[in-house]
């Protein structure tokens, strides 16, 4: 496989993008999980699907959209969906979680309409649903690299504000930090990372890469920085393990990656039980 990576561009694209996504999806995932926003990733991934379907549909009629990477339209829809979720959360102050199913079902509804208008599923759309690492182009890889640089730099620069907002929102507001702007930047980053991750694990599985490594990490980590570190390690292990296994066993990469993440989660839960059992 190593020689294959050196030889074939599509394998290089797949591995490099996998390594990047394996780190940034759990990095943002930590903030999503501790803020109890785990379902936001699901809602936004379905909105991304609507964007991709819209791009494929428009591609039938316009040469501009035919030449445009559907990922960009998916990204635009995802960011739009994130903004709408925020608006809805202020409309339904007492039922803030309602924003997520509203956007999720709206995304699927719109996606299905565009898919039917574009004459149903084709292999391209299927690859977005379940991920298709072999379909990652050099252009996709560059987009993923740019998004990751933006995300990592932003998280480093506003880390202490993001931490405070996640830990204690009321206190954060009382201290006078720009809570609304910070939250908005955060949600836009989530939307971008979801759109970037879908090539690897697919729209239906993208939230798993943001939550499963964090769910495992939170069981055993001490402190927030360690939680981030373990989450990224587990994310990388899942992606790399999944890509290798799927290559040799001829399995679907997206599914294999997610199942390795589930396996890691089960192992950490068991390990924690074993250790705390001994302590007692």
């Amino acid at each position, binding site marked *: 496989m190593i020689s294959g990576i050196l030889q074939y561009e599509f394998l290089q694209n797949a591995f490099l993008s996998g390594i990047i996504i394996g780190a940034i999806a759990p990095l943002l995932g930590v903030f999503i999980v501790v803020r109890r926003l785990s379902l936001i990733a699901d809602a936004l991934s379905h909105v991304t699907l609507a964007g991709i379907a819209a791009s494929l549909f428009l591609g039938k009629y316009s040469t501009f959209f035919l030449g445009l990477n559907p990922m960009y339209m998916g990204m635009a829809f995802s960011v739009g969906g994130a903004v709408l979720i925020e608006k809805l959360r202020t409309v339904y102050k007492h039922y803030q979680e309602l924003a997520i199913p509203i956007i999720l079902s709206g995304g699927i509804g719109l996606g299905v309409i565009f898919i039917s208008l574009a004459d149903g599923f084709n292999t391209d759309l299927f690859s977005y649903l379940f991920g298709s690492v072999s379909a990652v182009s050099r252009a996709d890889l560059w987009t993923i690299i740019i998004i990751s640089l933006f995300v990592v730099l932003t998280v480093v620069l506003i880390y202490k504000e993001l931490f405070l907002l996640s830990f204690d929102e009321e206190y954060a507001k009382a201290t*006078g930090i720009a809570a609304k702007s910070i939250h908005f930047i955060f949600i836009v980053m989530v939307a971008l990372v979801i759109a970037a991750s879908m090539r690897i694990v697919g729209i239906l599985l993208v939230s798993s890469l943001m939550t499963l490594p964090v769910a495992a990490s939170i069981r055993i980590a001490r402190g927030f920085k360690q939680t981030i570190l373990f989450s990224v390690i587990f994310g990388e292990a899942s992606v790399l393990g999944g890509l290798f296994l799927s290559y040799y066993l001829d399995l679907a990469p997206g599914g294999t990656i997610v199942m390795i993440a589930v396996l890691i989660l089960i192992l950490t839960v068991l390990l924690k039980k074993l250790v705390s059992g001994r302590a007692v």
Partner: protein
Amino acid sequence: MKNNLPIIELNHIYYRYDRENVLEDVSLRIEKGAFLGIVGPNGSGKSTLLKLILGLIKPQKGTIKLFGEEIKHFRDQQKIGFVSQKANSFNSGFPATVYEVVASGLTKKMGLFRFLRKQDEDKIVKVIKSVGMQQFMNRNIGELSGGQQQRVFIARALVSEPELLILDEPTVGVDAENVQSFYEMLEDLNQTGITLLLVTHDIGAISDKVTNVACLNKGLFFHGTSSEFEEQKIKGISEIYGHDVHLLSHEHHEGAHT
């Protein structure tokens, strides 16, 4: 700064949620170095008053000045430390160490795009020591008892070296034994020159600790020194609560029986 300069000035504050008045014509001055206890029953507007002072909500009528400045122009939030009702404000499963939580108290003071320097790290360790939590520095906050968590939150509020410390029902969920030492710690802080504003429904517990008392029940019913409060407490407090109350001495740690 002169000693009698008001740190908080509320002038004829009115606040209503929906159609119900929560605060009516509340005027209050808190001077530098005071230890003011605001007491009142549940629903008396205590938490609303704090939210107004913290700038989380705006009054429909009246003006608020902090450190002599209109609240809408006030930008020195690091001068104010805030300890909220622990139970409501944080997720106890949050994976953060005591050190990380206390460090987050420096967020506003440091400003955007700044990182902790050596002297900040020393300050964090020092303040954790000052609340007696040094042996728990690297433990996750969720693993601590209610009283220990509250000490951590005090440390978080103190790390930015505030001139005013606001505490909202800080002893809820703290066992009686620790409540006593908790109040002793607050008295020590007050001795160092920090102005304290404590909101509680636990009248008995605070009247011998604070220097000033304000009784709130939508309007302000009493505001004076704690010895004046002691003199007319039964009558005054009965009025506020709308029925008889019997104060217990602080040793019982039960507060007012209503």
